[in-house]
């Protein structure tokens, strides 16, 4: 008995003592945050809007605006003060809402959808967030009148708003691929590019076509607040590749040792994300949702997936060996992340938004990376063909073909795949386009001149795979 008590005292003493930190630990944190530029990529507030449905679209739009502004009024200030106290910068503050197609059920017209889109844009401006996601429809198995109205309203909405992001889920492992919806979305992408022709088709940068869209994704443009989510949730997307790249750079060992280096770095980064997310949620009095461990690049120098892959030992990102390196990279990040935080969610994959990743875009310009290799990466861990610039005259059937191929990879591999492509008006393969800011600079990729039109015009549903029937 005496011994047990003594041991207990020792344990308590050790616990107290373990709160102190070694100089190396404090300096490692300093280095990660201020030299390697570890940051939190996105803190996204998910808001349920089901209770905003009014007797008509105008009342609904007013309710939507009122609720978002009420809930998110102190959102950016809260993040700023948390960020200040922990010394961690947060790059993007965003809002995700209930898929708007559900709100349109009683008045499903294009005009009404656009009106609610304006309300989203106004609310985002009022609370000081640069993007708001949820102009969304989930149509993997069929399209309701309100889904059709929303999809038809996408070009006009994205053409007339600056902060609204839209996404449409056209496929899922359980439902298969809704080819009719794929075809509609290909047309809407073309129209959105035209509607934003003055800005080089940038409306398409805010439009994602998904397979297996996650309902708790904190990253734009695909974020929405899923129907199974709670009233209000804070989700966090962790840092970009620079901190991981630094960990890879430090490791000269074999692949096993390289895995350990990446896992250790991912653990620390995820913990920072969880800490920030939980603190923001606590101060706002809302539920903490998930940490998305996706590795997401930015246009900043060194913040590139291609750079990480090349530091791993692949001479040029895009050559043979790239797929295995990227697969291993994100697997290690997930493993480190899951050890760090119980609530891992969202996409938790590799983001390769080509125009936003300077290193990746360089390899596209050199002809080392191309559409086919990017598609191959989505079969292991990349979450889609993201920020791909195509010639302005790319046929809608080619776009539909790209979407349906990605969806096929998604349903067969039971993973999220997405397409965010921009047929840049007036541009031809090999030319470059500069969107400025977050969306970066892209090289127009070549597409084949032959079309999958006869196959896709058949319409209908590509049914779920036999492997998905698990019951």
């Amino acid at each position, binding site marked *: 008995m005496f011994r047990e008590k003594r041991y207990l005292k020792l344990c308590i003493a050790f616990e107290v003592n373990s709160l102190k930190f070694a100089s190396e630990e404090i300096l490692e944190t300093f280095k990660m945050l201020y030299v390697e530029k570890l940051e939190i990529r996105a803190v996204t507030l998910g808001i349920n809007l089901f209770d905003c449905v009014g007797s008509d679209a105008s009342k609904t739009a007013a309710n939507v605006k009122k609720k978002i502004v009420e809930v998110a009024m102190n959102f950016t200030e809260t993040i700023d003060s948390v960020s200040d106290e922990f010394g961690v910068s947060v790059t993007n503050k965003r809002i995700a809402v209930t898929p708007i197609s559900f709100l349109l059920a009683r008045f499903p017209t294009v005009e009404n959808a656009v009106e609610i889109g304006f309300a989203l844009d106004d609310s985002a401006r009022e609370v000081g967030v640069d993007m708001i996601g949820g102009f969304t429809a989930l149509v993997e198995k069929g399209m309701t009148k309100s889904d059709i109205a929303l999809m038809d309203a996408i070009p006009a909405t994205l053409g007339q708003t600056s902060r609204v992001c839209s996404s449409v889920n056209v496929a899922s492992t359980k439902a298969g691929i809704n080819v009719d919806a794929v075809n509609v979305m290909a047309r809407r992408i073309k129209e959105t590019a035209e509607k934003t022709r003055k800005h080089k088709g940038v409306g398409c940068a805010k439009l994602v076509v998904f397979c297996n869209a996650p309902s708790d994704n904190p990253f734009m443009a695909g974020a929405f607040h899923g129907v199974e989510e709670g009233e209000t949730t804070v989700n966090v997307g962790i840092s970009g590749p620079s901190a991981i790249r630094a960990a890879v750079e430090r490791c000269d060992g074999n692949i096993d040792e390289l895995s350990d280096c990446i896992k250790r770095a991912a653990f620390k980064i995820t913990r*920072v994300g969880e*800490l920030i997310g939980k603190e923001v949620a606590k101060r706002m009095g809302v539920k903490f949702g998930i940490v998305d461990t996706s590795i997401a690049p930015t246009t900043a120098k060194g913040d590139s997936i291609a750079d990480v892959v090349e530091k791993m030992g692949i001479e040029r990102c895009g050559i043979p060996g790239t797929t295995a390196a990227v697969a291993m990279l994100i697997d290690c990040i997930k493993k480190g992340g899951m050890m760090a935080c119980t609530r891992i969610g969202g996409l938790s994959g590799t983001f390769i938004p080509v125009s936003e990743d300077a290193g990746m875009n360089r390899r596209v310009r050199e002809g080392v990376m191309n559409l086919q290799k990017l598609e191959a990466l989505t079969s292991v861990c990349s979450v889609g063909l993201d920020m791909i610039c195509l010639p302005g005259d790319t046929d809608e059937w080619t776009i539909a073909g790209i979407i349906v191929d990605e969806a096929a990879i998604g349903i067969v591999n039971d993973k999220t795949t997405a397409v965010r492509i921009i047929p840049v008006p007036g541009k031809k393969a090999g030319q470059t386009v500069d969107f400025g800011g977050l969306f970066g600079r892209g090289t127009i990729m070549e597409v084949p001149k032959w079309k999958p039109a006869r196959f896709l015009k058949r319409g209908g549903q590509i049914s779920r795979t036999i492997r998905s029937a698990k019951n």
Partner: protein
Amino acid sequence: MKVIITAVGKDRIGIVAAISNALAEVGANIEDLTSSRLRDEFVMLIVCETGKDKSFNELKRAVVAAGRKIGMKVVVQREEIFKAMHRI
């Protein structure tokens, strides 16, 4: 509230005095302090408790300003971030 202060910059006379004076002025109690010099670079790490009725922001403003005067980069962070990153 426990905070950890990291100060880095060119070594010179009066760094410890300047930072600790700023902390004393806002009523913060230093619990642990370590410093090291590598050629002409100086690094100082301080663990301290914020003063009663004094906010984190007051402490941060005072210490960062004191650091700036002597050419040091000073970072002030709540202790929890170190616990999150370095403890399982």
